[in-house]
């Protein structure tokens, strides 16, 4: 029962000042085992904040990140799943599911976490699942201004993943979930 938090595209301090208060009150240390962030935090203070929530933080480089030492892509294994992270501004057309699927096959991961479009998306194809947690602060993206803050919490339990989607709509936190199973025996 591993809890993995995926959130990115915060754009603090350029486009947003902080996470929404309702999100912050929910994110308490001690519950989450891993944090994956596609990038665009953008400053060190945000990185420190994420570290305070959980010791194991993985971040990839977004185009506005201050810290240039973040890698372009990252892969890790949690339980039975291989996860990959990439910001997504490198993949053109931005947000195109076919191209992202190509990246996923390249990285050879079951779940790809990506960002940049600031829109939540969960897409399944035969190679695996692509999850875009959206922007946790609701910062405007290169494409549109109309963004709802959102992030994703995954509960990895054996071969099954429950993805909880937290979205702030009209000042209220809405939580939905998505289930999927990894086919037994598939690598």
């Amino acid at each position, binding site marked *: 029962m591993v809890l993995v938090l995926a959130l990115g595209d915060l754009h603090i301090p350029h486009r947003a000042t902080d996470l929404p208060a309702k999100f912050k009150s929910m994110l308490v240390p001690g519950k989450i085992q891993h944090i994956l962030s596609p990038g665009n935090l953008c400053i060190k203070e945000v990185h420190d904040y994420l570290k305070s929530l959980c010791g194991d933080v993985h971040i990839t480089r977004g185009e506005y990140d201050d810290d240039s030492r973040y890698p372009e892509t990252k892969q890790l294994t949690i339980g039975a799943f291989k996860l990959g992270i990439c910001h997504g501004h490198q993949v053109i057309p931005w947000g195109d599911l076919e191209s992202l699927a190509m990246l996923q096959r390249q990285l050879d991961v079951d779940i790809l976490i990506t960002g940049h479009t600031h829109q939540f998306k969960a897409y399944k194809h035969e190679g695996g699942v692509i999850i875009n947690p959206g922007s946790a602060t609701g910062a405007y993206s290169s494409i549109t201004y109309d963004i709802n803050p959102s992030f994703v919490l995954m*509960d990895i339990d054996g071969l099954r993943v429950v993805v909880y989607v937290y979205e702030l709509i009209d000042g209220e936190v809405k939580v939905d979930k998505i289930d999927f199973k990894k086919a037994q025996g598939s690598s």
Partner: protein
Amino acid sequence: MAAGSSSSMPPPKPVPAWLNSAAWASKPRSPVRSSYSFKEIGTIQRDKSAPPLAEIGAQEDNHPSSSSGGTVRGGGGGGQQTDALNQARGNGFEASSQQLSRRRIHLAELQRLSSQGIPDSASIRAISWKVLLGYLPKNQDDWATELAKKRAEYLIFRNEMIINPSEVTRRKEQMEAMKAADMEAKEGLLLRHEITHNDHPLSLGSSSVWHQFFQDTELAEQINRDVKRTHPDMDFFCGPTAYAYENQEALKRILFIFAKLNPGIRYVQGMNEVLAPLYYVFKTDKDEDNAAHAEEDAFFCFVELLSDFRDHFCQQLDNSAVGIRSTIAQLNALLRRQDEELWRHLEYTSKVNPQFYAFRWITLLLTQEFSFFDSLRLWDSLLSNPDGPLEILLRVCCAMLLCERSRLLAGDFTTNLKLLQHYPAVDMQHLLRVADGLS
């Protein structure tokens, strides 16, 4: 009190009679007789105050049954053995097993026999403790039903209290009959589903299964830390084997369920020490069936035992008439009644506050002061007292002080405190005899 211990002592005060008793004479150990010879019973007169009979427990404790593989910590002074005592051992075994095999157990009789020490063999101790604590009813016919009922109850507790939230959400979904097809969707955008009752991992609502789980995790951590430190020298608890691991898991579950069922006192450090002997005795029961259900039995017996002492664990009651402070005051008063001089010396001259030593003695029922097997013998006496274990516990504590009388009178604050907090090894039989002798 080892016979040979000597420090520079002041001129000897008049020696009390019990200090000169024959029990101190140490003889070389004769080889252990493998079988109990019932034929020689006739020569021994069964009498509560007779020293030979009272030493049976010491024999058994010095040769513990090896089923647990527990290593014995050095302790319990020289076990006296003479031929007469070997016969007496057979006597005690026969008497106890006879008592236990009766259809209707005479509780007072069992208590009397137990206070003299329960033999280690043939799971007599396990059964005796269960009867003495009231877990098993006096009528043997009811045992089967009673046991089945209680064990089933424990299983229900276990399933309710020890939850894995992922499991719970999975079960909920199955109840809501989510289509399996959803999960097996081949391609395309994955659909989002509503969740029920706001039950997500970050939920702060008190009705959320996840929230409860995270709160319990803290409790579980605390229990885990303490269980791992229980009796580190014994293979039964802390060996590298799967058996020891299983025992630790059982202890953790028992303490966790107890804490959840008693939100008033929850878990306090030290409860693991009180539970350990109970679980050990039940788990090393020769009877396979009983040993398999040791966890359930230990849980209920633990609850019974703690019902007498729970006020000691509750911090708010510390200063009340039932709390630990008042019990310590009772001990102090008892000491004063028995030996005014020693009391005065401790209280005024060396200024040793009884809380410094008596706190651990009383709350942990003396499990930490003696070797494990000595404390099992001690618990035989504690549990067999018809007035409740507290009364005899105080008397034993007083006896402990009296036995070290000369050293205490000679010492100042530091030496006395050190002595009392690291109580030296004594002959358990002797200690219990002294305790019995106190009014």
